[in-house]
Structure formats: C-alpha cells, structure tokens
C-alpha cells in the first residue's frame, strides 16, 4: 500500500506482446463481418425459437441443456433490442430488419476469440515456454471449425471458453504462492467458470468432474503435508470444498432461479408440467384456476387430470357411448358406458363428488371437505352415470379391470361404484383433498383396484381416446395411477338441467397459488432430464468414431442463389497432428511410467510431473469430452466434438516441446526438428487459407474449385445445379 502512494505516480505495467498479438489476431478472425450471412445459419434455427420465447418472457422447456446458455443468447438479444418477432422455421431464411444479427452473434464470437489467449495462458500455467504457448495459440487461431462455431449464435464456443477459463484459473490457483488473496480469487473464478460451463451444456459436467478429480488429488497431498497443523489443513480443505463444490451448486440453482423469474408467461410447453406449476405461470392455467375453492368437498364439481403426462396429458372423461358388446378379437365387454381419458378440455370431463350415504349433489354449508381415506362416489356430470369398475377385462389391457359408467342392464352385474380417496402426498392421515396440490389415488372398495391410465389408446369405437383401467396388481407409486383436481367449483344446482348449464360455464374467483422455488426447480430439472424427443435422424448427424478423422462435415448455410456456402469443417492438418500428438504422448507416458517403475529416471522429477499434469489436462480433457458420447443415444453432430478437440490440439505443443528438449539430444537434431515444426505450422496456415472460403462463406467459389476442396469422398459439399 505504501509503495502505491509513492510520488511521482507511476504505473508499472508488463504486457506480454505475444499474448496481445494473438488476441488481436483472434478478434480479427472471429469478429470480422459476423453479420454475414444475414440469414438463419444451421442451429440458430433451434436456439432462435427459444431466444424469441425468452424475449417474450414465455416459459419453455428445452431438454438439450440447462438454461444459462439461453440466457447468454438472450443477453445478446436484449442488448440489441430484439423484440422476439421472427419465425424460426427454416435454415437459410433471411433475417428481417428487427433482428439485431450483430449483437446476437457477438457474444459467442467474443467468447470464441478469447479461447485463443486462454490456450496461450494454459500452456504458460502448465510450465511450458512462451514459444510453445505461442504455437498452441496459433493452432487454435487457425482452426477453421472453431472459427465457424464462434461466428454464429451457437453455444459451443462459449462452452469451450468457460472450460478453458476453469482450467486456467485452477492452475493459477495451484501455482500461486501460498496465502495470497489473489490465489483464492482464482479458485473462486475456477469454481464459477465450472458452474457456467455446466449451466451451458450438461457436457460441461465431465470437465468439471475432471477438475474436481485433479483438485481432489492435490487436496490429498495437502492433507498429507505434515508441516501443516490440523486446523490449517482443515481450513484449506473446507475452502476448496466451498469454492469448487458449494459455489457451483449454488450458482447452478441461481441460473434456474433467474430463468424461472424471467419466464413467467405461460407458453407452448405448459402441458408438460404439473397443474401446480402451470398455476404459477401468468396467463396459463392460472387464468382458469383463479378463484377455485381450495378444499374439495362432497358435492364439488371437478375435472380430474392424470398426473402422468405419458403418453399425453389428459382428463378423466366419459360420454354417451357404450363399450361394444364384443371386441374385434371376440372378447366380451359389459356394454356399459365408456370411461376414457381425454387430452382436451371438454364439458364431459366434469365429475361430481358424492357422499355414498347421502342423496345430495350440492355442497352443504358449511362445506364438508373430503379427507384422505374417505369413501366417495364419482358421478359423471353430463350423463349422471357413476364411475364403476368390475371383474371384466379392460378393452386394450385384458389383465386389468374395465372401468365404466354404470348402467343397470339387469344382468346380475351389480354396481360397484365406491372409491376410497388415497392422497399420496399427504402430510397427515387426516389431510383434506386440495385442488391442484393433492395427488390422489382412487382405490376401488370392492376389488382394491386402482384407477389408472393404461397408456393404450382405444380404437375407433372409443374415438381413439386413452384407455382407463382398474389395476389390481398396482404397487408402489406409479404416476399413471395418480390424479389431481384441476378445475373445481362447489356445485349449487339441484336439477340436472341447471347443472349442465353450470358445468358449461367457466369457473372464476381468485386465489394465487405459489410453488416454492425448490419445488419448481426439481420439477423442471426432472422434466428436462426425462423428456425425450423422439430420436430423429438428421441428414448431417454423425457417429463419434467419424469425428476423430473428420470423416464428416456439416453444411451450415448455402447462399440462396450462388455457390457461396459455409461448412463446419476442421483444419484437417491440425486434426491429424492432434491425433498424432495424443498417440505419441500415450507412448511416451507409458514408456516413462514403466521405466520409472524399474527406477530408471530418464527425465528430471519436475519434468515428469509437468508432463503428467499436462497429460491430465489435455488428454484427460479430450477423453472426458469425447468418450461419454459413445454411451449417448441422442442425435450427435460433429460440433459436439469441438470441446474435446480444443484440448486435443493443446496436446500438440506439449509433445513438441518435450520431444525438443528431452528426446532430441544433439543440436543438429533439434535444429532439424525446429524446421519440421515450422513447416508444419506453415502447412496448417495453408490449410486454413485453402478452406477459409467455406469458413467465412465468401468469396464465392466455382464448382471446380469446390470439387477440388472435396479432399474426402465423405465430405458433403453442395453444388448448385446450373
């Protein structure tokens, strides 16, 4: 502090000119002309629809990743004043003038540019020379695939940025001298970057785990350091735990908190959520549920929604049509009235809750609430049939009982219409059945079958509605057997005609229902992880094995009238070197490892540790970002490989420096090797230059030139027919 006050006022400033130079170049390659093309490029069409919803504050579910990614893109839209009015339906569609293309693309481009200096810093932190670091950053700089992915409204470049930042800041922390304040700031930055990365894409989780593993090993050494007192080692461990585990978890929750706070309008995905969740959104279910009485009472008129939204969200339903006497396969039915589950709002979804011991169909005053364990009858509002089940095989699921609206045909088939209310999420055994909040099983008194959605659809005679059955072997908790009251009012009309009018009128009064944030978070996160879009094959989807050798590419954009086009395509020279470097590293590592075991030390201990650490970061980073894809069942694209590729590229300078210093002993060998490296860098530049028209989309190439660029048969380059 005293030094800082010394006069005359001086600022000591060290600038790594190399670092500045690569940063400037990186900005040039990533940021120049990003508003071109002024059309939707590949996955922009996917992220765009969510961006528009974000701008309009409309709630949505995107199962592809946590919400932080959408927030970053929405920030761009917010800065550019985007109003969300654009139809994202087709790749190549021209942007209208209200879409701020530049601001939308600038954040990923900035993140992508900063990856290059981060690569430089990573090499320096791993203890390699500045020349090596320069080589690393040049390789990243001239990597066409990273450039393409940075220049559009896509998330991979942001993900890579945070992954590198997390690793660099952790290494800063690890290398810094003990007990400086800065050191702990680096650790916190590392934890925060991990949270950002995981918040962008679930894939970030694997690098986070790698980093945690590395930190755990380092912490284990701290624990083993006997010079530390018990108290101080305990503090160190707790500090690391707070920064690397607690902080990311809290931040991850924070993303969801912001997400749910920002998106408060109801929207297209409402139906996937529970009634309680929908009630918390503005304009959705909240509009309908406003003012409903909370406690379900005898005489209540209700709609019952199945808690399971598989195969479709639907409501318990009946209508004036009976089960056919014989089904197609010759089995018989009771020929009573059909009871189904219907995925649309309808007046036939209304049921009246009746006390079996009383005749009344209206709510007494004061209302008598229905409690857990009470026996009720359910009367269908429009047809006045009682919900009934009996020992007759259900139409589509013959192992379960048929559920019907009871009609007495005088065929010695008595009514069995008593149901016991079983509130599954009750807090006590005398809980009252609550609108929306209570999840209820209806257990048949005579047969102890549970009213359940079987999942099958009825054929034409049942209007293709969903089948409802009584399941006798029901056990444990199954969502398909649980229902909740969604719409609800206290019945007042004594006459059937009045009642029909009443059922047709909308419900209204006013109460606001709030779910806690944690409940919303858990529901949303669970839905995001379990909702599976149908696995759709895509023209440009590929398999992980094809990525290593870049057997595949993706056409991102094609000019509507000319041959100008943009492809996601890597710098094949760099990719080859990266594979080679990984291979050489593994060989070197194994050789050293085995020889060290026999107490033959070829290299100094410090170099060995440096080599191992570099391997953990680079090869480890590659492995954790690549191998998990082999277990995934979703549609995969080449761009999923880019985080892994970034780490793999950083392996090249590590191996080169090691070979240069320790393997090549004589000066002439080193000189020759230097020449080879230089030539390799030149070929990388040439390759970058050759493919840059496909990277930047301009200048336009002729068909012959395009054909000449098709170095591999499997590359899919588009030719416009003349």
């Amino acid at each position, binding site marked *: 502090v005293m030094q800082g006050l010394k006069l005359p006022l001086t600022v000591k400033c060290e600038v790594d000119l190399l670092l500045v130079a690569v940063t400037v170049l990186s900005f040039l390659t990533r940021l120049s002309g990003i508003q071109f093309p002024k059309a939707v490029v590949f996955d922009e069409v996917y992220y765009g629809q969510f961006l528009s919803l974000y701008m309009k504050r409309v709630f949505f579910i995107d199962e592809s990743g946590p919400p932080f990614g959408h927030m970053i893109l929405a920030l761009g839209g917010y800065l550019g004043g985007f109003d969300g009015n654009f139809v994202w339906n087709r790749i190549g569609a021209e942007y209208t003038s209200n879409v701020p293309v530049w601001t939308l693309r600038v954040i990923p481009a900035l993140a992508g540019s900063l990856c290059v200096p981060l690569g430089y810093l990573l090499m320096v932190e791993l203890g390699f020379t500045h020349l090596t670091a320069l080589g690393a950053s040049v390789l990243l700089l001239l990597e066409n695939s990273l450039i393409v992915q940075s220049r559009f409204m896509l998330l991979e470049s942001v993900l890579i940025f945070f992954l590198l930042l997390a690793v660099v800041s952790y290494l800063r922390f690890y290398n810094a001298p003990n007990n400086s304040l800065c050191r702990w700031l680096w650790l916190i930055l590392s934890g925060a970057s991990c949270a950002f990365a995981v918040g962008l894409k679930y894939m970030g989780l694997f690098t986070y785990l790698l980093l945690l593993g590395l930190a755990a090993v380092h912490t284990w050494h701290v624990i083993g350091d006997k010079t530390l007192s018990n108290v101080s080692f305990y503090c160190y461990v707790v500090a690391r735990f707070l920064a690397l585990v607690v902080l990311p978890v809290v931040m991850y929750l924070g993303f969801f908190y912001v997400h749910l706070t920002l998106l408060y309008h109801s929207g297209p995905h409402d139906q996937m959520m529970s009634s309680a969740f929908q009630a918390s959104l503005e304009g959705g279910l909240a509009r309908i549920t406003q003012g409903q009485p909370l406690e379900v009472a005898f005489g209540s008129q209700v709609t019952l929604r199945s808690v399971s939204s598989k195969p479709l969200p639907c409501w318990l339903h009946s209508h004036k049509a009976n089960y056919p006497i014989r089904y197609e396969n010759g089995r018989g039915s009771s020929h009573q009235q059909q009871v189904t589950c219907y995925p649309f709002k309808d007046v036939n979804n209304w049921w009246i809750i009746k006390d079996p011991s009383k005749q009344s169909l209206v709510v007494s005053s004061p209302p008598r609430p229905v409690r857990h364990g009470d026996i009720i009858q359910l009367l269908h509002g429009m047809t006045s049939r009682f919900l009934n089940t009996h020992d007759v095989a259900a139409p589509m699921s013959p192992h379960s009982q048929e559920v019907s609206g009871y009609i007495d045909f005088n065929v010695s088939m008595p009514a069995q219409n008593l149901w016991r209310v079983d509130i599954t999420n009750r807090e006590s055994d005398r809980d009252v059945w609550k609108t929306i909040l209570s999840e209820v099983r209806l257990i048949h008194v005579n047969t102890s079958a549970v009213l359940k959605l079987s999942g099958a659809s009825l054929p034409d005679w049942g209007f293709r509605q969903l089948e409802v059955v009584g399941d006798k072997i029901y056990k444990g908790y199954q969502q398909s057997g649980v229902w909740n009251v969604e719409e609800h009012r206290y019945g007042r009309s004594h006459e059937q005609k009045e009642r029909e009018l009443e059922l047709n009128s909308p419900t209204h009064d006013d109460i606001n229902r709030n779910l806690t944030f944690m409940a919303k978070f858990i529901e949303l996160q669970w839905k995001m992880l379990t909702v599976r879009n149908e696995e759709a094959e*895509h023209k440009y989807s590929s398999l992980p094995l094809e990525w290593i050798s870049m057997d595949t590419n993706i056409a991102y954009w094609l000019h509507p009238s000319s041959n100008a086009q943009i492809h996601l395509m890597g710098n094949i020279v760099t990719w080859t070197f990266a594979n080679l470097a990984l291979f050489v590293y593994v060989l070197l590592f194994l050789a050293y490892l085995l020889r060290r075991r026999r107490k033959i030390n070829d290299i100094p201990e410090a170099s060995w540790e440096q080599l191992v650490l570099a391997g953990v970061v680079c090869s480890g980073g590659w492995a954790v970002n690549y191998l998990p894809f082999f277990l995934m069942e979703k549609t995969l694209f080449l761009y999923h490989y880019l985080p892994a590729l970034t780490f793999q590229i950083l392996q090249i300078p590590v191996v080169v420096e090691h070979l240069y210093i320790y393997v090549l002993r004589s000066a002439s060998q080193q000189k020759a090797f230097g020449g080879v490296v230089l030539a390799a860098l030149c070929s990388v530049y040439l390759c970058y230059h050759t493919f840059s028209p496909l990277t930047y989309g301009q200048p336009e190439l002729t068909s012959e030139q395009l054909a000449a660029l098709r170095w591999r048969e499997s590359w899919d380059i588009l030719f416009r027919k003349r």
Partner: protein
Amino acid sequence: MEDRDRFSEDTQRRSCSKPPVRNRRACRETEKDRGKTKPGLPETRKTGLQCSDHMNQPLPFWLLLCVAVFSLSTRFYNITEPPHVCWDETHFGKMGSYYINRTFFFDVHPPLGKMLIGLAGYLTGYDGTFPFVKPGDKYEDHNYWGMRGVNNNISYTLQPFSLSWWLWLILTGVNLSGSLGVKFVGLFVIILVGISTAWDLWKLLGDLNLSLVDFAKHLFARIFGLIILPLFLYTTIFAVHFAVLNRSGPGDGFFSSAFQSRLIGNNLHNATMPEYLAYGSTITVKNLRIAGGYLHSHWHLYPEGVGAHQQQVTAYLHKDYNNQWLVKKPDNHAETPELVRHGDIIRLEHRETTRNLHSHLHEAPLTKKHLQVTGYGINGTGDLNDLWQVEVCGGKKGDPVKVLRSKVRFLHRSTGCVLFSSGKTLPKWGWEQVEVTCSPYLKETPNSQWNIEDHINPNLPNISLHVLKPSFLEILLESHIVMIRGNSGLKPKDNEVNSKPWHWPINYQGLRFSGVNETEYRVYLLGNPVIWWLNLFSLGLFVVMVSVCSLALQRGAKLEGERKAHCRVILEGGGMLFLAWLLHYLPFYTMGRILYYHHYFPAVLFSSMLTGITLDTFLQNVDLLCRPPYSKYILRGGQTVLLVGILYSFYLFHPLSYGMRGPLAHDPSSSMAGLRWLDSWEF
C-alpha cells in the same frame, strides 16, 4: 487376494510367526468358500464370524467340510418339488432339448450353460421329446463359476512357477472362460481379474530384485493362463456348439445366408437352385445387416396416421411363406426365362397378397427422414411407384445378379431412394417386426444391401452351390453380434415385471417363480431381507471406515500391530470386494434390456463377503469407540446377535425358497404371516 499378499509379506518378514499366519489363511479359505454357497444363507456368515473367533486355534478343516455339506443340503433339499416347470426352466429346458436333438437355435447368451443342462438331461436319460425338461441342476450355478475364478486368482503367492501355482493359474483361466461361456455377465469378473492381475504385475515390476527376464516369465505366464487359454476354451465351447448343433431349427432366420448353409435340413444346405436371378422367379430377399431380416409383407395395413393407409412391409427374422416375392418386368410380360441384370427396372410382387413393393413421399413410421414402403395394387397391377432399379454392388451395367452371392440394392425409380432396413422394431401394430424404409441417403451400408436367398424358377436348371462355406471365425463373429443385438433387444413386454437396479440392494421386490394364489405350490425368489439390509448397512459402514482409515494414514497416524493389519484388510481386501461389487452392479444401470432380480446375485456375493470383513473389523476395533470391558462385550454380543439373527431369519423365510402352500401372507394363519415387511413383496 489381499490377505494372501499380506501373508506372504508377513511370512517373509517374520517367519517365526508362521502358525498364526497359516491359521489366518485357512480362515480366509472358509470365507472365500462363500463363493460356492448361495448368498444370503446363514452358514456363510457363521464361518465368517468363527473365523475371527478361532484366530489362535489350529485350522478347523471340518468347518470347511461342514459348510460344503450344508450348502449341498440346502440346495438339493426338495429339488423335485414342485413337479411342474418354474420360470426360466421353460426357457433353459427347451434349449437343453435342442442340444439333445442337435437342432440349431438362437439365444442371447453364450452356449456353455445350456450345454451343461443338455448334458445333464442326456446323462439322466432324458430323450428330448418333451417340450421342456426338469434336469437336476439349477441354472443359477453359473454365476458362481466366476467367483471361483477370483478365488483362484488369490493363489498367486504360492511359490511362483511351482506345479500348484500353474494349476491354480490355469484353473483361473478355465473358470474365466467358463463364466463367460455361460452368460455375458461373466465379463465383469474377467474385468475384475484383469484389474487385479494388472495390479499384481505392477507390484512385480516395481520389485527390483526381480530381473526383467523373470518379470517377462510372469507376464507371459499370465497372458497364457488368463488370456490365451480362456480365449481358446471359449472358442472351443463355440466350436462344440456349432458342431453339435448342425441341424436346422427355429434360430436360422437370425443368421446370414452363408451361416445357414452349414445347417443340415436348411434349404441352403447343399442347395441347388438357379444360379442367376431371372424374371418370373419366386425369391426371398434377406437384408445384409447382421441379424437383418427377410423382406416381408402381410395382410395387415399401416394404422391410420402412420403414412398412407396401405399394406405393411417389414423385415422379419423368421422363415415364413410371407417372405416370398415374385420378380416381374414392369410391363408384366413373362416370356421365355430372361435374366435380371444390373440396371434393370423390375417390380416385386408379394406372392401371398399379390401386392407390389411400393414407396412414395410419405414419411416412414419410425425413421422420419426416410420414406414409407408399402404393398400396393391388386393382382400385380399397381402404379409407377412400384418400379425398382436393381443394382449389384460393385457391378456394372448388364451384369447378371448372382443368387446368394451378389449384394443387391433396390433403388426406387421415381423418388431415387434406396430400400433400407433400419433395424428398429415396430410397435404392436407391426407385430414387433423390423421397420423397412426407403432411404434418400445413398451411402452403401449393409442396411441398404440385400441378397437373394431362396430362388425358385421351374424354367431354369438348378445348379449346386458350394460357395458359401464361412470360416469358423466369421461364424463366431456373426453369432456374437447376433447375441449382443438380441441381448439389447430384450425389452420388457406389456404387463411384464421390469426390475430396476435400484430395487436390488434394498430387496425391494422378488421374483415369482411359480404359483400365485392360495391353492398353488408357491416358490418366491427373494433374498433374506436381514442379510440384504445388513449388506446395505455394511456398504455404508465400509465407506465410512475406509475414509477414516485412509485419512488417518495420510495424516501420518501411527498404527500398531492388530490395528495396522485391520487397516490393510479394510483397504485392500475390502477395496477389492467393493470394486467387485461395483463392477457387477453399476453396469446394469446403463443396460436398456429387461432386467431381473437375479441379475444382482453375483454382486450380492461380493457384497456379502464385504459385509463379513467390514463387520468383523468393526467389531474388533470397537474399542476405539468405548472402553475395554464394554468393547469386549460388544464384540462377543455383536457376533452372537449376528449369527443367531441370521440363522433365525433363514428359518423364518425358508418357506419362500423351498416352496409352500396355503394362505397368502396377509392371512394371519399363513406360515408367512407378519413377514411381509414391504408391500412390494408378493407372497
């Protein structure tokens, strides 16, 4: 293994303390021997505890014998009850019959287990004519082969390269191949042995007293004993399998035409048929994807909402008259026999329904990027969308199409797409057959390549085809891919119990072997809940103990004598068992196939052994928690309670295993009254 390692070091360092060491090893023997006994039976725990009790007494050899006798008696008691077929006996029994009849079949597991069952049936004089058998052997036995493999691996600290050392090594290898040869779960035990062997070699490598030559001997001995020998035996099992099953049977359709030509009775065995495809022939067309089906159609239509409401075309894995197609010219002129050539336009008419193979611009039922393929037209009269261009892979215009040998593609004339089998299973409306589509992506993959298998044309001379003898390695590879496909294709059917891996350690639900209601003889597969939950508790306790122990070591705590030994047992022995448990349990979470309760049994063995070690060590070290006189009481009391509790729980639950009649558990007069501790148990 861990203990043996320790003992060997102990013997090296303190040779004077030999008697107790020998004794300890013997104790472990009994503990190992749990491998032979079923998990969750009281005898095993008994030995585990007695082990520590008899620490300083001479080797109780009779104990081992005792356990073996107990084990046999608990397993063979009442084996002829019930007198009908239980659960998987239908399955495995049937396959036993196939062996005896030498009929080729297909199953999702390697064949050794079924061979044994077949052999048992053969030895007991069963003639293979009943639809299923009831051999005197239980099929679960295979799970424990692998266990023995591990046990044997323990014996490395015998004098290296001595006769018995070799014997144990080879026995390990044999058992490894045995375990894999019965079920693919055996793979996990191989990984376990692999890991422990690698660790063992790593230690040997670090021993500078051992020259590199000696190390190489160790290395090659293991490579021979644990890799080459098991591989050889494993392939031998398959060789026997293929040699025994040389007759055609129900599994034929899963395999390629070449494979089928080996089977006596199959129409491709010593087949004679016209050599080149000709117009007017009746053919079957097989997809070249491994385990690809025959091009198939039947009277059923695609349901509404799935493309056009026309007749289904699928790929079907079984031989069936609905697989037959007629090759016709577009203009329907069938004159003198004429060969079909590369580039020709043809129509394929389904023989049974007389509809033409047809495609159009509707999306396929499952693979939405592809086009739908249907049967269209009546009596062979259709439209322009029925035309397909024949293309021989690697051929040029005018080449004839060789039956069986040519890889053929069918390009749809008007849309330019290619006939494709995606391998995805259609839902119920498609009878769970495989989807057939027309793919707009023209890459040459086995999915889009077909071969002509049967070829009937009365106007052409039949020629004997001896072309397709596949080599043994090809058969081996093909049968493995078919098995793996079949395994992952075992999806739960409607209304079938699908057990989830998280059910298993908490003993959430058993498996009904036979009998449902009161009058029937019921056998219910359920682990002894006391043991199961004790295992669960011990797993938690083990993790805590390991953490405490390793933290203490890392902080430089000085451990003395017994305590040090206990620490090693927990870290190394316990660690290996814990790893084994993880290896046999976690992979099930990634499996998409249908799972059953008994898949957890190999894991529970390791878990039970871990429980023995953990609880024993915990009780021995309970003096860390309370003062000496009380700790002694806790030790003795704990051992007694465990032993008695486990025996008593076995007695309580034994009717489940040996079968029972009478009322169900909710009835107070039932023998199981009050024992249905979880609602999810079904007895």
